[in-house]
């Protein structure tokens, strides 16, 4: 189930919260677990195996955690075994379909029909499971003795499908006891509605432009339209993922948990280095905490630092999707970050204008590698962005960019506006006045539900995770 869908908002949420709020506090974890399992089951109805895999991992991770806690002698073995199992499962389910399709594509007369499906949320629950086991292994906290509490941690539906990646210590206390304060519940509901608006009212509509550009075919678009298209994607991916994270935070508040922030105005960054401290923050933290620092971080000399950065960014690329372009995107990010760290980073920090202009180009260009999976199509798209040879900047349809500007200009304005801090400062002020806040939220909710009902496009880019 996708958060931005009518079944979730109009059926699941009301039914779930009816039970959740009316249940005595000591049974809330049971309700939350049941609700989350139902949520996952509905999402994996095409491949029931995925559901059992998920439940198996919950029990397995809990058991391994307990074994690590109890056995000094074998704790390393338990830990390594568990991590390997997780990684094998992740790699298998994430890449086997792609590997087979590539073999079909490249090996003559090889034609295997094979599809094991993609377990929703596996990228997230794998990382959360590994983080838990690593923290128990290094003694950061004791293993969770209650299977129920651990199961709630791994499965709670607000962060299961698309993050944020929550580490166990962030919710440990709340797993034990939480009271539902009406003010907090309503605050969470408002947050959820705002996140819904970001996704349905900004990401989805502006994403349509990128889809249209793809349907026209890159060979037939003018240069202005190509740039409009990639900026449309740039806004789509941000508000899609940001909106989803805000919805997760809102649901967390309604449940009694504090879910960490995942985005901090990333498009205001002046360097790629800064960008990755503001974009998908919990992923960056996970890689830093569980890969970069254990490998030595930047404390083992320059060569080792470069090696560690390379490992982190290739894995980041790999994590984002099953396709060459994702790993190569990770490699590209590494190159950019390397250059910023050792070559020109200081200029970007010292002269903000240069930094902003640099990012204005680099963000959409790096996203194009993320957005276009095929090498030939990507090359074609680049010749449209930079039309210095051959066709020139125009297409058969001279006024194409004018036509789409007329249709989409206001979405770009909204996208730029919501990339700054301004609307959020305004929102903080509105929050203080109930007579402004409630109509605002009601409008956002109403229009969003209407758009969902009418079925305007809804590709959730990060849902492959």
């Amino acid at each position: 189930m996708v958060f931005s869908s009518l079944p979730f908002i109009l059926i699941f949420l009301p039914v779930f919260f009816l039970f959740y709020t009316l249940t005595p506090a000591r049974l809330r974890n049971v309700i939350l677990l049941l609700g989350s399992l139902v949520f996952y089951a509905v999402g994996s109805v095409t491949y029931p195996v995925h559901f059992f895999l998920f439940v198996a991992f919950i029990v397995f991770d809990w058991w391994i955690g307990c074994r690590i806690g109890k056995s000094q002698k074998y704790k390393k073995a338990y830990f390594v075994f568990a991590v390997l199992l997780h990684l094998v499962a992740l790699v298998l389910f994430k890449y086997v379909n792609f590997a087979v399709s590539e073999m079909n594509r490249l090996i003559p007369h090889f034609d295997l029909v094979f599809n094991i499906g993609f377990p929703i949320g596996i990228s997230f629950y794998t990382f959360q499971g590994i983080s838990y086991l690593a923290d128990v292994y290094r003694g950061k906290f004791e293993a969770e003795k209650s299977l129920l509490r651990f199961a709630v941690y791994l499965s709670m539906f607000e962060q299961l499908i698309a993050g944020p990646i929550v580490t166990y210590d962030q919710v440990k206390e709340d797993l034990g006891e939480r009271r539902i304060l009406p003010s907090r519940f309503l605050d969470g509901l408002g947050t959820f509605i705002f996140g819904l608006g970001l996704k349905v009212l900004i990401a989805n509509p502006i994403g349509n432009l990128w889809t249209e550009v793809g349907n026209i075919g890159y060979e037939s678009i003018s240069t202005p339209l190509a740039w409009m298209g990639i900026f449309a994607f740039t806004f789509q991916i941000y508000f899609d993922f940001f909106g989803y994270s805000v919805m997760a935070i809102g649901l967390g508040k309604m449940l009694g948990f504090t879910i960490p922030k995942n985005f901090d105005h990333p498009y205001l960054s002046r360097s790629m280095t800064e960008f990755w401290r503001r974009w998908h923050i919990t992923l960056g933290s996970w890689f830093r905490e569980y890969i970069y620092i254990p490998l030595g971080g930047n404390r083992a000399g320059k060569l080792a630092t470069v090696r560690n950065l390379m490992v982190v960014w290739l894995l980041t690329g790999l994590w984002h999707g099953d396709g060459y372009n994702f790993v190569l995107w990770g490699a590209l990010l590494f190159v950019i970050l390397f250059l910023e760290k050792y070559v020109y980073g200081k200029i970007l920090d010292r002269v903000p204008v240069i930094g902003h202009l640099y990012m204005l180009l680099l963000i959409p260009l790096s996203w194009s590698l993320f957005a276009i999976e095929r090498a030939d199509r990507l090359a074609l798209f680049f010749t449209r962005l930079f039309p210095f040879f051959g066709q020139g900047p125009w297409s058969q349809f001279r006024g194409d960019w004018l036509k789409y500007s007329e249709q989409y200009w206001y979405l770009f304005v909204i996208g730029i506006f919501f990339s700054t801090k301004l609307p959020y400062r305004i929102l903080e002020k509105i929050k203080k006045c109930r007579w402004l806040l409630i109509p605002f939220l009601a409008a956002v909710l109403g229009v969003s539900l209407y758009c969902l009902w009418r079925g305007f496009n809804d590709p959730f880019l990060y849902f492959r995770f």
Partner: protein
Amino acid sequence: MKKSHFVSFLSILLMVGLVAALMVLWTMPDVLDDPIAPPLLDGAEPSPVTPPPVTDSDATDGENTVVIPRPEFTMQNSLFVGDSRAVGLKEYAALEGVEWFCDVGMSSANLGGKSIAVGDREKMSLDELLQNTQYRKIYLMMGINEIGNHMPTTVQKHRELVERILQLQPDAEIFIQANLHVSKIRNDRGDSVNNAAIDRFNAQLSEIAEQERVYYMDVNPIFDDATHSLRSDATGDGVHPYAKHYAQWGDWIVAETRRQTGY
């Protein structure tokens, strides 16, 4: 070199090698098992020609037969009436001398309410346009946006449209276009937009053409794959061809027009 440096160096080398290998695989062209499907515009069977209205004039005045030469073939003073595919043709087919009364989502059901600015004119309905501008050729292409409606009603609306045009423009040649198939993937979604329904409707359009003695054209053989669906490599959304194909489609329309009208 210290051991740790060596390890780091080796790891970096390995990772660079991996990235290089992935880049090679990424840019490797597809290895096709089957021969490539015939290129578009080749090998398509001509659609059956409905008897053309008489255009040659053979005037006889008693003993001498005077043959009035036919005017040169031209697409000037042609009008296209249609839906988003007609919009695509308008934007990407570079058909000279053609005017367009088309809109995304257009159908015989909503045609009456449409007010469109054609050429330099103000916005007006199709009826008004046909009352004050005479066209030599009028092309109609609609149906996909109403394929889920009650078909006999839709067919009747199309018939009435043809009759109205004949009434307003008795000298114009009318060309009814078959609706384009959708791709197999789109077809297999199992809703009302499927190729069986499209074929049924197109057959009805062909009958209207015969009964009203106007022309009928079917471009589908050009774009079909072996399953009589729109070729999946010719479309992004399964319903509209890529813009680059509209030029070919436009050329085909002109060639087919010539063929059917005896040019």
